[in-house]
């Protein structure tokens, strides 16, 4: 039988002479590791603000909802789609929406994928989601997607509001990702994203602007 492409490629690679694997240098500890909670918050805020993100600090559920009310008013939001992770569920946004005159939906409200897709692309002013971690190093959100965290909710609407518990604020990417991909970790998600500020480009005449394909604005509420 003719050798498969796989066997052929691997065999040819294996026949090649072996080469030495160089030693790795020791890296100094990342600076962020030494920061306390205030330091981490400051760093996260500074980094995300540089990318035109906005960071709010909310003490409790009431304050989170106050911020959302403020945002809804400032951005004239009428239609929100939310994720259904624990953090967002705990806010009871549908009740809040009723008070504010904002319609709040979840992916589960749509009978099928098509109608969900249409809604999230064309009929949603903002996506409100939780995030699994906030990384101080670069002002980055880590979102593990799944049934309660649809991919398009934080991507397709022009505004993304994320609510993250302050206890989820960690120094580096490794601190967050080892939870998912480490030995003792959870089952790795099918799709995980690191999100640092809004979508952007500088592809035409090197002119940078936000909101190329994804959100034009990103707001993070650090809670607790």
């Amino acid at each position, binding site marked *: 039988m003719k050798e498969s492409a796989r066997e052929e490629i691997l065999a040819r690679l294996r026949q090649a002479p072996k080469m030495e694997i160089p030693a790795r240098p020791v890296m100094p500890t990342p600076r962020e590791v030494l920061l306390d909670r205030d330091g981490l918050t400051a760093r996260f805020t500074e980094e995300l603000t540089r990318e035109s993100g906005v960071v709010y600090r909310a003490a409790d559920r009431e304050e989170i909802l106050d911020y959302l009310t403020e945002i809804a008013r400032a951005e004239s939001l009428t239609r929100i789609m939310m994720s259904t992770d624990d953090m967002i569920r705990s806010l009871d946004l549908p009740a809040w929406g009723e008070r504010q005159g904002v319609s709040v939906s979840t992916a589960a409200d749509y009978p099928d994928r098509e109608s969900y897709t249409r809604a999230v692309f064309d009929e949603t002013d903002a996506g409100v989601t939780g995030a699994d971690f906030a990384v101080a190093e670069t002002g980055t959100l880590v979102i593990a997607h799944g049934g309660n965290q649809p991919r398009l909710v934080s991507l397709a609407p022009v505004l993304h509001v994320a609510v993250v518990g302050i206890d989820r604020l960690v120094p580096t990417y490794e601190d967050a990702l080892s939870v998912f991909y480490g030995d003792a970790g959870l089952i790795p998600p099918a799709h995980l*994203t690191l999100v640092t500020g809004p979508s952007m480009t500088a592809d035409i005449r090197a002119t940078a602007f936000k909101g190329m394909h994804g959100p034009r604005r990103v707001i993070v509420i650090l809670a607790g």
Partner: protein
Amino acid sequence: MKIDTGNFVRNAKLEMQNQYARTFLSLLPPYIAARRVKVMGSFPDPAAAQELSRAIRAEAVARMPDLLEEFEKNAVAAGARVLWARNAAEANEMVLSIARERNVTMVTKGKSMISEETGLNDALAREGIEPFETDLGEFIAQQLGRPPFHIVGPAINVPVEEVCDLFMKKAGMQEETTDPVELGYAARLFLRDKFRRARLGITGVNMAVADTGAIINVENEGNIRFNKSSPRTQVSVMSPEKVVPTTTDALHLLRVLCRNCTGQSISAYVSIDRGPREPAEIDGPEELFIIIVDNGRSRLYHDPKLREALRCIRCGACLNLCPVYAKIGGYPYGWAYSGPMGQVLNPALLGLEETSDLFNACTLCGTCREVCPAGIDHPAIFLHYRALEVKRKRRSSGRWETILFGVWGTAAAHSAVWRFLYRLARPVLAVFGNNGKIEAMPGPFAGWFGARDLPVPARRTFRDQWRESLSKQGGAS
């Protein structure tokens, strides 16, 4: 993708007359290069960070066959289908049959250099499947039918007026504008509709993690995330050298890649996929195909020097600093890869015959080697290519060169011969002098003077003068 590496000199001359491109080249690359230095400074020890990324790339390439098998095993366990293609034709055929089986007539694509290499867009279009590049720069380059000008900004040299015309014609733009932001939003609107409708999304791969079977993509625009979220089928195309040992290694490379690429400490988005979507998910691909395209790499892997080319992480730092790229831009390199990266990769992947201008168009200044986070010694590879080329050519051509270098070699090794020949040559050279310079000579020497002048030899040589002054001194004492 059309290969035009053989016309390097002609295209370089053309591009050097392009005033717009030249202005651009004098501004942007130095700016990105400066930003890079600044943001590398955010590492506690930038030199150690660079050394570590070089070590990771060297290890990844050295262990490539084992890592590929490990990656495949873990990706398959997570539900991905891993396919292997020997060459461009096989890879394109795989994508085509996946598309045909699903009755797909339109696909959206994230930027993928390997698919530039295989000419996937043309292959799809020929079969009546319409491909849409969705990275803004790549979209413009695709619609103009041009190769990438710069790996990070494929159409960054295209004047806004030209983009405006193009979008009026091909991207449904309603009103003329030369504002880059308005142009960007026009493309957003046009491509958004494609994302919503696409059944098949194609992406490249920045890194494939062996110990988890995950693939990682790095981007700013969000187009790759759309390609991984909206369509029901995802095809991710990668070359074998994308594989890295662990997530920790990938994260370090990620930090180094973003800093070297755009001078960011991280790109807006990084997405990591392990298998297709979970059953509970409402969006994301129901099937994930990963196509590993060899396209000559397992062959060049046998040459230890060429193997080094596989370390490249396509960051583009070497382009931004190269004095040759700074004069001619990306087009003359004639294929998917440009700048020093292209001078290394294009000959390695296409062979030396049609690419010799690429490795000869280098002053061996070594700036690329210094900056390269993957630890590639570009000048050494160019010298290797040049040596291989000379060996290859000796049998067929270069008669004059062989004779002249033979004579020169003998003369240089024997001082008497050298003096004798030089004495003969001086009056001859003087004949061609003009204002103290020789600007042209006939015959086999013509080429040498194409870009250089030679000073006319002095009437008396230094040695003659020296001997004379010695004998004078001797006479006086």
